[in-house]
Every structure is written in structure tokens, then in C-alpha cells.
């Protein structure tokens, strides 16, 4: 089937089996490889993207549901050369180690800050539930608070 959606601000139409996970359309058809495969069961969050601004685990999101939607991936998080506050904070705190899960965490954090501009530690614990095997959680928490600061200062 043909599926049309906006991704990172640009319209796209793909021909695919509607049950194909959106992750593979993003990675293999549209060649946006910042969104990662980790588990294929929505259990780790490495594939987190935004659909209409909400965080979605794209490995378990059938492509047909994307019809007519606005989708953002890590490649669309920054505004050209201007990094998103979450990315700025990730740079300042030097968060990534292996880096593989980080796009998913940054996307989850960016979505959280849209609905909760100043999350408490408890909010972070309850909402940021992706898996990082290098266990960079300590710096991530600092970076999430820092991102909230940068974002509110930009307003």
C-alpha cells in the first residue's frame, strides 16, 4: 500500500506492506539511520521517534498508522545547525558513551519537555524508561535538568 506522511518537515510517500514496522521504513527506505533497532518489541526505546509530538517506539508501530501524520526523528530534532536544547545539554554534560541508545533517550526527553517543561527527578524516573547498557543514567539525569533550563531560557 501507499503511505504518505510528513517526516522532519518534508512530505514522503512510500510503497510498503502496511504492517512493516515504521522503524524499517525510516531506516532502510528513507535512509534515516539515527533511529535505532534494539529489541523489536518496544522494550528498550532505542527506536523512539515523535508522532504528532508524542514519543512512539517505532519498532512496534505499523507503517500504516503513519498515514497523514507528522513524524520527527533525531535527524529532525535540531533546527539546521542549531541543536535542540536536549542535544545542547547532552553535549554540555558529555552524556554518550557507546551512543547507540542516545537518540532514543534524546527523543524521549524532548517529548517529555514539551508536556512537562521542568520535570522533577521523579517525573524523569517515571517517564524516561529507555535502556542504556553503558548506564549513562547519571549524566542523562543532569542533562535532562539542564535541557529544561536551556529550553526555558530560550522562550
Amino acid at each position, binding site marked *: 500500500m501507499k503511505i504518505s506522511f510528513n517526516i522532519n518537515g518534508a512530505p514522503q510517500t512510500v510503497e510498503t506492506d502496511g504492517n512493516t514496522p515504521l522503524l524499517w521504513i525510516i531506516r532502510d527506505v528513507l535512509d534515516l539511520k539515527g533511529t535505532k533497532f*534494539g529489541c523489536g518489541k518496544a522494550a528498550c526505546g532505542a527506536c523512539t521517534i515523535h508522532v504528532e509530538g508524542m514519543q512512539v517506539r517505532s519498532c512496534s508501530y505499523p507503517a500504516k498508522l503513519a498515514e497523514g501524520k507528522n513524524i520527527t526523528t533525531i535527524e529532525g530534532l535540531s533546527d539546521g545547525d542549531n541543536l535542540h536544547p536536549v542535544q545542547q545539554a547532552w553535549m554540555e554534560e558529555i552524556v554518550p558513551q557507546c551512543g547507540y541508545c542516545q537518540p532514543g533517550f534524546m527523543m524521549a526527553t524532548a517529548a517529555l519537555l514539551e508536556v512537562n517543561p521542568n520535570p522533577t527527578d521523579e517525573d524523569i524516573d517515571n517517564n524516561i524508561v529507555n535502556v542504556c547498557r553503558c548506564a549513562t543514567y547519571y549524566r542523562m539525569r543532569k542533562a535532562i535538568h539542564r535541557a529544561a533550563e536551556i529550553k526555558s531560557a530560550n522562550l
Partner: protein
Amino acid sequence: MSNSEKTEPKKKKKFSRRKFLLRSSIGLGVVMGATYLSRPIWRRALANFANTAEAPYQGATDDPKIWFEITADNQVTLLSPKIEMGQGTFTGLAQIAADELGVDISQMKVKHAPSASGNLDAFATGGSTSISSLWQPLRELAATMREMLLQEAAKQLGIESNSLSVVNGVVKGGGKSVSYGDIVKNVTEWKIPKTPKLKDVSEFKFIGKPIPRVDLKDKVLGTPIFGMDASMPDMLYGDVVRPSQIDSTFVSADTSAAEKMPGVIKIIKEKDFVGVVAKSITEARNAKKAIKAEWKVNKKWQNSDIEEIIKVGNGTAYTIQKEGKPNFEGEDTITSEYHSPIGAHAQIEPNGAVAHVADGKATIMISTQVVNITRSEIAKRLGFEAEDVNIIPTFMGGGFGRRLHTPNGIQAALMSKAVGKPVKCFFDRKEEFQNDTFRPPTHHVLKAKLNSNGMIESMEHNVSSGAVAFGSPMLPPGAEAIFGADIGAWRGGMINYSKIPNYRAISWKVQLPFATSWWRSLGLLANTFAIESFMDELAIKAGKDPVQFRLDQIGDDERGNRLKKSIEAARDKAGWKDGKLPNGRAMGFACSVDANTPCAHVVEVSVEGKDIKVHKVTCSIDPGVAVNPDQIKAQCEGSIIMGMSASMFEKMEVKDNQLTPTIYGPYQMALMRDAPKEIDVVILENAEQPGAVGEPPLGPIAAAIANAVFRLTGQRLRSMPLEIT
């Protein structure tokens, strides 16, 4: 080298520098001397050597031209034989090279050396050895490269080279200047001079500074740098039927249904696997599900079988350490048993590869910790010369020892050869959990007797474990016969308290019915859990402060003194107090020495119901020279939380011949909510050169937490994962 003749890849030039020759000759001396001694004694000598020796770099180190590419824009690319898997090696290597080359850190780029470049490491990226083993060779290579550039500059400018100076890759002298980028344009033939004098510590601009990671921006932007992101033009997608049961052998497969599935290009049947190549990953996955594979299963294994195998006493014993005459007669002998479970690597990037095999040549893009071994394994299976296989290493989405094993490279190569096009193939998550090369379970029996002053008179540590180093491909054939005990399984299993008059450590080797190998820090986590929990038990029995109890029994040699300083640093920074704190929490203490790096943790813990909460960890680490203090802290933070994850949550079990669970969640791991809110790292530099960083801080965490829990609940938790009953 750009703008100069391509150098022929050097074949297996071993490290050639004096210091490294010296070290390896010590190793050889031990082995040779061993033949004159009885076997148990020389095996103990070998074990002691393995416990304290700095691993030498085992790659090409005599030709700077295969390490550095200097481009016209005056940038230097370091082609690294060590792979970046998050440990920060690229950044440390860039700092070391920049200082000796005389360039700014912003002029440094680091890339993985493809095997075809000739810059091959015969060992692996692992064991926390990348910075420590390359510290001297890389400085010498970079200094030699600088000298080569200076000599060329002298020739091109017509000025004596000893009157030239370098700033940020620009050579100046006699009122003239020329950049490295311009020098290389006009080089006709490089001459490799003698290694010049290396810079003094006082001249370092980047070594010792908290330089941001060189891969930071790529990782924040989501740039496609990982094995999973690799692609080649006209690429197809493969998948392989992998066993779901342990101790099983592939027999045959009915592929008739799969052949008719949409998108399928070809079914590949090999002696040890069946695979499918299709147009997309989803089509390959769907076709794989339609293949009916038959496996020969030898026995229906259960976890109780594994627990029986692993018991101390059921395997082969090797004494790895012995002082005095340990004596455990009498009723006052204290005995405790400890257990650790099977652990999964659970790295987020699954194993996979992109391979292109055509015209007698193979190109493989792959996340591997063992470029050289991956290359030789693939070459052997294809019937190619190793030089006809080019391994292009990618950034790894976590290593932790999982990528010492790369059969996926062979499978992708065989499928590519069968279809004549590039093929990408990787594990799904369930297959990762079922086909991992696991951290083996362990069982520990400890015994001790105290003297009338409450000091330890005799102590013994028995550790029984499946294969670790002997499960990996890096040891040469015959190593097991020489060493006897598995040097990875007993890592961290020796007793560091050398003032005890009588002590020994015994490593028991057993055969498990599934693959086990390296898992970050090898045996360190489980062995330190057992020994350091037991030390706490003994301190309590002796009525002594557990920190002082340890300090009083550590030797006054260099190794002992470094450990004592590390313990004191953690104790003082944390404001150590034994017993329950006024806020309802308690502190716990543990320490270890891993690959000559002492490390000590003080944790602050509370218990609510059955939940253990770690609020704060104070960590001291002494890696000697701290090349990048920020990344050392990052490794400590990550090791601590990964160690907490393994200590408090993680457990694989065998049920009806299957390893389970097979997905995150049921395989419970530390998440954001479990991470301590405070991690305070103290870095000490009590050695002349950099040592291990990436694994040592994992060691003491389980025992430190268990020791704190005892102070809160009176329960001595002797099994990982730690569970209050």
C-alpha cells in the same frame, strides 16, 4: 599517508619498543623457568604474572605512516586499531597523539583502521588495555611522525631541523613557516628516524585534561556510525535460523515454504546453518519464520543441572595463589558460600554485519572487538587468504565482551558469496539473549580463622566458574594446557590482604552446556562480591571497623600501598561511618585491585520493604596517569550503574533447555530510576603510566551494597542478584 606512496601493509610486526620487549621477555622467562619447576608452582607463578603484568600492545608499531594521515587542510587522522565501544578510547588516543605530534586537539580526527591498512592489533579491544597498552607506543609513533615532518620541513625550507619549532601543526624557523598539510604535499620519500625524546609531563597540553569526547557530536546528532547503520550499494538483507536451545546441533531444514515467500532471493544452506536472503529485512525475517529447522538436542537441561555443575568441588581445582599453610581445623573456622547467576551482555546494538564477497575478495563492515580474529575466521571459511578479506570496523553499540565472537560475519559473507551482492544480516533480540556468550554463573566457598587479636590467621577463596578467557578466541592454542585455571574466571579472585600469614585461592574449572566468555570485568564482579562480602563478615566477627580491618591487613609493597591510598581516599571523601546513619541509611564498603588499578567504593543505601535503594556512591580509582579525567569519571559512573544492574537485577536461567528471559524487562536491568543521584569520583595518580579504567570500578559494587544492606537489615545477602527475603 595522503600524497605519498602507499605503504605495503606490514605483516604482523610485533611491538618493537624496548620497554615492551622487556615486559614480554619477563613473560617468556616465567614460562621457560616454569619447565624447571613442578607444575602447580609454575602455574601459580604464571597466575601471579597474569594478575600483575601490564598487557603489551600486540600490533604494528614501527611505522608511523600507517597510523597517521595528514591532509592538505592540516588535519591529522589517527587510524586506530582499537575500536570505540563507548569506553572513550578514541578521545584518549587523540589526546596522546596530539601532544606528541604538536597539533591542537581540534586538528585530530580518529577513525577505525580497516584491516587492509595493515594497522592490525593481534589481540583485541578489551580488558581495559587500549590506553594502557598504547600509551608508550603511540607516543613514540607520534613523536617519530613529528620528527619525520620536521626533517621534511627542514629540507623543503632549507633550514636545519634543530632550529625549527612546531605549534598547532605549523613548523616555524628562520622567519619561514610551513604547515604539516603543505609538507606532506611535497614529500617524495619518508625517512623513519630514531625515536626522538618524548615530551615531559610538564609539556602536555591535552593529556590529563577533561577534553570532550571526539565522537560526541556524531553521537548527539544520531550520525550513522554503527555496524547496524552500515550499508553498501545494491545491498540485500539476510537472516539466519539460530538455535533456541542450548547444547543443540543443526541437522537439516525444510525451506520449501520459505522459498515461495515474497521478496525472497535465495535460500542458503550451509553445513552449520540455514539462511535466507531477501529484498528487505522484514521479508527476510518473515521467510525465516517459515523455515522448519531440525536440531539434534542432547539433553533437556534445567537450571538445577547448571547449579550442580557449578558447585565448588565438582570441577577441576587449580591453586592460583598460596602463602603459608592455611589451616581450617577446629570449630572456630568461619565458612560462607556465595553465588552469582548467568549474566547476559544485553548490549543494545545486536550483532550483525554487512558483507560483500566478489571476485575473490571480501569486504565486511562489522562491530567487532577482534578485527584480526574476525578476519582470519572469515578468510578460513571462505577459503581466502587473510589479505583478501578487508574488515572495516564500525563504532560498536556496546561491546562488553559480546563482540569477541563474530560468527555473524561469516554468515553474512557466505550469504553474500551465494547471491553475488552485498548482504546485511543481524540478530534479533531473542536470538541475542539465547545465543549470547554469557557471563558464567559462579559458586564461591570462603573459609577463615581469626587470631586472638581479631586478625585473619588463615583464609581461603574457592571460585568455581565456567569458561571466561578460555571461552574467548584470543588465547593461543595450548594456553589452557599451560595455565590450567581460567585467567578470566579467577580475575579478582586472589586475596589482596597479604599481611594474612596463611592464605590461598583456588580456581575450579567446570564445563557448562552453553557458551560463556568475557563479560565486562570478567570474573571481577563475582569474585569481589564473594571476597569483599566475606571480609565484611570477618570484620563484624572481629568487632572491627571494616575499612580499618582491611587497611591493617594489606601489605606495604607498592601494590598494597596504592590500594591503601585508594581505600583512604574513598573513606575520607565519603565521610565513612560504620553502622546505621541518623537518616536511616547505612554505608557499605568494598574494594578491589583489577589489572593493577585499585578501586574502592563507599555506597549509601536505604531499604524500604524489600527494595534496596542506592543513593550515593563515592568511588576512588587509581589508574596511574589520568589521560582524560572526565572520561575516567564517565567510566566509573557507567561501571557502577552497570555493576548495580548485574548485582541487583540481572539473571538468566535455563528452563527446558532454553536460556530465559529473552527480552528487556523480564531480563530486568537498572533503569534511570535505579541510578544513584550522587556519584562522587576521586581520581588518584599513584603510578607512572596509565592503567585500566573501564572495568575496575565494576568490581566492588555488589559487595559494597550487600555490606550496607547487612547493616540495615541484619541479612547477609550471599547471592546475586541481591534480594531481601
